[in-house]
């Protein structure tokens, strides 16, 4: 009788990826739960659209109460849709490594033979795709409910601005995630703190031009500030007159922000990981 005892030697060898193949495999693996999770639990869509819509409606009614021009209603709808990205970067990118630490996954990420940069990129891509769907739904619903009229000047520039703003924003999220490696209980509070002040200084509900030039310039470090300003200039009739800088200049600055944040994320992540290992913070759990 043939001996069918299984031994490690008899098992088929699993092809092992290394280098850029492993990098891409990791990106896909980390993006996968974000995309599939959304499909499996569709109720998320309701809460992620319904809650921001209430905020959008409240600000729209404030503008109606003070008899603002109709374009301002559109500004609120576009800004309200973009809040989905800021919340995603804040809670599902920056503070994600803190949640992973809380649940005991962070140490596994570190000891696995993959790049942390690939994990963050996977989180960013998965989150970006899922959030884009939510933002689109908020925009469509808001536009229908409040009868917003758009006058798109250049689709090409609009797509470019959006993609650059997203790249820079998620690059910033990756950079912030590395800082959160060192945080514990305070991570939740810091994310919580960064919501309303950023809505304010990035002009989510009004044109950033309303601020003093230097305040608006400082706020431009957050990619959504210029991204929103440029998008409003490109989709509303009164947009160009209320824009902070010209669209081509804003595109140029967004390109620079993309480079700074992505390169910064790579170096900061490596540094923070070393620091967190040295200080023993990767597995701490201070509740």
């Amino acid at each position, binding site marked *: 009788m043939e001996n069918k005892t299984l031994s490690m030697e008899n098992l088929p060898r699993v092809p092992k990826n290394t280098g850029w193949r492993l990098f891409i495999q990791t990106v896909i693996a980390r993006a996968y739960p974000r995309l599939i999770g959304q499909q499996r639990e569709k109720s*998320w869509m309701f809460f992620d659209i319904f809650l921001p819509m*209430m905020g959008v409606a409240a600000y729209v*009614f404030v503008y109606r109460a003070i008899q*603002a021009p109709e374009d301002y209603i559109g500004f609120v709808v576009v800004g309200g849709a973009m809040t989905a990205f800021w919340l995603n970067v804040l809670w599902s990118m920056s503070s994600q490594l803190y949640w992973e630490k809380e*649940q005991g996954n962070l140490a596994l990420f570190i000891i696995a033979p993959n790049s942390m940069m690939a994990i963050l990129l996977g989180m960013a891509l998965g989150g970006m795709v899922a959030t884009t769907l939510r933002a689109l739904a908020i925009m469509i619903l808001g536009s229908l409910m409040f009868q917003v009229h758009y006058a798109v000047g250049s689709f090409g520039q609009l797509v470019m601005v959006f993609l650059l703003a997203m790249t820079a924003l998620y690059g910033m999220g990756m950079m912030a995630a590395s800082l959160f490696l060192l945080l514990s*209980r305070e991570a939740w*509070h810091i994310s919580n*703190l960064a919501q309303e002040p950023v809505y304010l200084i990035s002009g989510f*509900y009004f044109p950033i031009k309303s601020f003093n030039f230097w305040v608006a310039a400082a706020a431009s470090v957050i990619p959504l500030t210029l991204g929103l300003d440029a998008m409003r200039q490109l989709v509303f009739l009164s947009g160009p007159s209320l824009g902070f800088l010209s669209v081509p200049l804003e595109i140029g600055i967004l390109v620079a922000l993309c480079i700074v944040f992505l390169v910064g994320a790579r170096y900061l992540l490596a540094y923070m990981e070393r620091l967190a290992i040295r200080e023993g913070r990767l597995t701490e759990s201070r509740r």
Partner: protein
Amino acid sequence: MTAISFPSNHSVQLSPAHTFLRSFRIAAWLGWQIESNWTDPFLFAIYSVIKPLASAAILVVMYSIITQGNFASPVFSYIYLGNAFYAYVGAIMTGMSWTIIDDREHYKTLKYMYIAPISVPVYLLGRGVAKFVVASISVLITLLFGVLFLQLKINLLEVNWGLFFLALVIGVLMLATMGLLLAGVNLLIAHHYGAYGEAVAGALYLFSGAIFPLEVLPAWLRPVGFIMPVTYWLELIRRSLVGSVADAFPTLSAVSNLQLLAILVGLTVIFALGSIFTFRWCESRARERGMLDMVTNY
């Protein structure tokens, strides 16, 4: 050899009032520690101030752009005061209900609360005290900012202090009962537990006329605002602080302060009874289903 003597084995019988006070006091202390001891006092003070001020500043900038800074208008007082005092809604109502999730999922101590000789609803009320204190600080600072920099016309000599404190106390009780109701619901929820509190708070923000008069809402949505106690509470607070605001908007101008108080008390009592009943029902369901020590990692 020295004998060790133990206290007599008689259990100490505490009166219900004593149990109430003890649960409340310890829960309030615990709540304050959780709220504040994650950082040093200076950073905590900054944290407590920045968020409400930024939230108010969004409305101030929106208003200022459209009206060219006409802060003397009663519309501004209406928006600013409504937004400032709305901080209590988020803090007390959402904060109390979140305590269930925090204790069950994060600290994993909810089951110990249930086996301890305390009253859980009173414990939840106590945990709300810290939220009330933090919200009070933010309301005070927001009002101070409005008076100092935005021509918010609050004349301390003209404020109807009696009405203000009466409305504030009833309002806080009303929010606590709503928080208890949500806490009961949270006992039975495994998914989206953060979203329910936010959804209720968001709906109240939208429909109670917190930052715009109810006339701005489509006519078919206005009745929603009229059944919410927060609508009457905010109106009373505005009237007590800046009497002229009431005359500027027709929403509740035909209703006297006394009538508003009566409506607020009536709705608060209805909510209180509903909350206690709902909490008890949810609690018994949670016991039956073994959900009090559930950890979902959601």
